[in-house]
């Protein structure tokens, strides 16, 4: 696509993932749609069980039984990820869309040298780069994430958490994918290291011109890192918009409560928790899943599920479009 509108890197439409248990289907992801723009950083926040990690895993087609992708489309360039054959999907992984999984620092094979694990990823997708050429490529990748090229000869247990995180990053960009999904990439790191690791990730992203989906629950990290933010609740995307506006003027009552519950360096001795509990995904309440906890619920909320609709639109750029799934915001303004 050309023109004023931003180019879309990945378009997700009506994604549904259910886990089939003896007690019924757990609707982990229920109709999630969003566009990821080229080169942008999109955040996905939500509490545990809100479906953010399941969404990420579904895009990588890594949902395991009893989980199943029930429906949806995920258009990445010419590829529709959800309808590829298993072998095609294997080839697409990390070549077109890559993942820094949660806890990547503990996901490296303990008995293989780090360099071999980077090389593995490359060899799985390309014919025959070997020997000296491969070694040079691994070295370059390690330098790219600010690690010494000699790190290739080390075993994971010889590296610190932050270094292993960087190795995960090097693997995720090894094949220059268009989209990188990073699932809580810094949650196990100390704040000081966290900042350094995120700085590296975004520098590398810029050099590759890739788009990033950052999955997490730390609103502070999101505020500092992403361009647009999606808020998930009970398997649904309830709000999506530019991060600054979303934080300053949240549209959805859940987002509003979430933002006001955050600690800041302005208020002391004041706590605003969200009352109530997230709903069961096995037997969600009728209507809007948030209505039992919503202070602004109106009549329709108990019966009708609100769809994600555009609240603030701009013809020029999808980057400033704001969407919310709430009966309080049905009309489009601009």
């Amino acid at each position: 696509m050309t023109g004023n509108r931003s180019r879309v890197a990945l378009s997700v439409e009506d994604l549904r993932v259910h886990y089939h248990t003896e007690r019924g289907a757990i609707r982990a992801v229920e109709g999630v749609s969003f566009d990821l723009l080229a080169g942008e950083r999109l955040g996905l926040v939500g509490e545990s069980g809100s479906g953010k990690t399941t969404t990420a895993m579904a895009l990588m087609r890594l949902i395991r039984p009893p989980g199943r992708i029930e429906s949806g489309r995920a258009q990445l360039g010419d590829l529709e990820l959800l309808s590829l054959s298993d072998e095609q999907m294997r080839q697409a992984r990390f070549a077109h869309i890559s993942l820094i999984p949660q806890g990547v620092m503990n996901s490296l094979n303990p008995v293989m040298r780090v360099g071999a694990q980077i090389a593995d990823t490359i060899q799985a997708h390309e014919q025959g780069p070997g020997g000296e050429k491969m070694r040079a490529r691994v070295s370059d990748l390690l330098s790219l994430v600010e690690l010494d090229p000699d790190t290739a000869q080390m075993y994971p247990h010889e590296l610190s958490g932050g270094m292993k995180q960087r190795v995960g990053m090097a693997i995720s960009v090894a094949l220059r994918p268009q989209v990188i999904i990073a699932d809580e990439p810094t949650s196990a790191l100390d704040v000081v290291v966290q900042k350094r690791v995120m700085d590296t990730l975004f520098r590398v992203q810029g050099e590759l011109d890739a788009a990033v989906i950052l999955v997490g629950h730390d609103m502070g990290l999101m505020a500092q890192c992403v361009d647009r933010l999606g808020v998930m609740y009970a398997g649904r995307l309830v709000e999506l918009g530019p991060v600054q506006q979303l934080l300053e003027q949240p549209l959805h009552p859940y987002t509003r409560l979430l933002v006001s519950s955050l600690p800041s360096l302005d208020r002391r001795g004041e706590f605003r928790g969200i009352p109530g509990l997230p709903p069961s995904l096995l037997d969600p309440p009728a209507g809007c899943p948030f209505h039992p906890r919503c202070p602004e619920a109106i009549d329709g909320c108990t019966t009708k599920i609100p769809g994600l609709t555009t609240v603030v639109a701009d013809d020029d750029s999808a980057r400033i479009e704001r969407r919310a799934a709430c009966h309080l915001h049905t009309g489009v303004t601009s």
Partner: protein
Amino acid sequence: MSASLLEARRVRMEFGGGLFERQRLVAVQGASLQLPADRPVVVAIAGESGSGKTTLARLLLGMIPPTSGSILYQGTELKQLDRSGYQVFRRQVQAVFQDPFGVFNPFYRVDHSLELPVSKFFPELTRDQRRERIEEGLRAVGLRAEETLGRYPHQLSGGQRQRIMVTRALLLDPKVIVADEPVSMVDASLRATILESLFRIHRERNISLVYITHDLTTAYQLSHTILIMYRGDVVEVGDVEQVIKAPRHPYTQLLVRSIPLADTKRRWGEDPDGEPAPSQGGAGPETTEQALSIANGTGGCPFADRCPHVMASCQQTNPSLVLTDPGRAAACHLYEEAPALSAEQIATLSHGGTEGT
């Protein structure tokens, strides 16, 4: 000097150094802190992993004995308490831990965690009285008995489980609750609720809190005073408002700048007041083991290898805490002219006492 409720006096904790271990790790290096007896306070102990904050918490709880220095409860050293004195200490100094799942025995319903301490410390109560006490304790943290009792831990949310743990501590009529990272393993949306219940019992029941955390924003929200720890050392201590808003120690400055604030107007890496960072923290060690072995190896300031203001003297001697401002001290050679402090003065600073000013 005012009477203290719970006090750590120059406590040092070393691990290892046994017959088969070559390396000793100094987890806490001569830390002093004090909770006053006359009024409830909230003291935060903040630092990254490996800073020694959890070890200090375990020392305060009497779960491990210090290598040197002493822990005192109501003026008496823990190891000198007699049986009944220890029972009083055990009941009155309680804890809430980080992992809200592991603290429940999976074999029992959650009731077990609540009934056990009550029947242990208040054997005179009848069944109904115990039940009443438990229900009242649950109400105090915003839980309803019918929604929580009789369930197994996995049937409750992380927030509910953590608040049950607060209830457990509450049931014993404690004077102090040591909360070791109580919200770091629960969802952001539930953190406020848990911190709120802690804060409420502090206000309503006059319970002092020791809040251990790596998160400066919640420390700021909850506490009156704060200790910043780095590799086993207390590097800065004092009133929370002063320490967070105008940190003196270069490490505290780095830490405050590293907070990702949920505020797009304040860029990450800037001081909260908008000043850009003088320089990034250098590539320091990233693991606990590395950090500790370095800290143990040299006699200099443990932060010297990452400090933007490093001087020759930093490599040679480890600075001790000096009074940089009224009510606040930092351990840094930048403030060499400031008056030195005794352990008692440091201890009173930790609860915002008047003697330090």
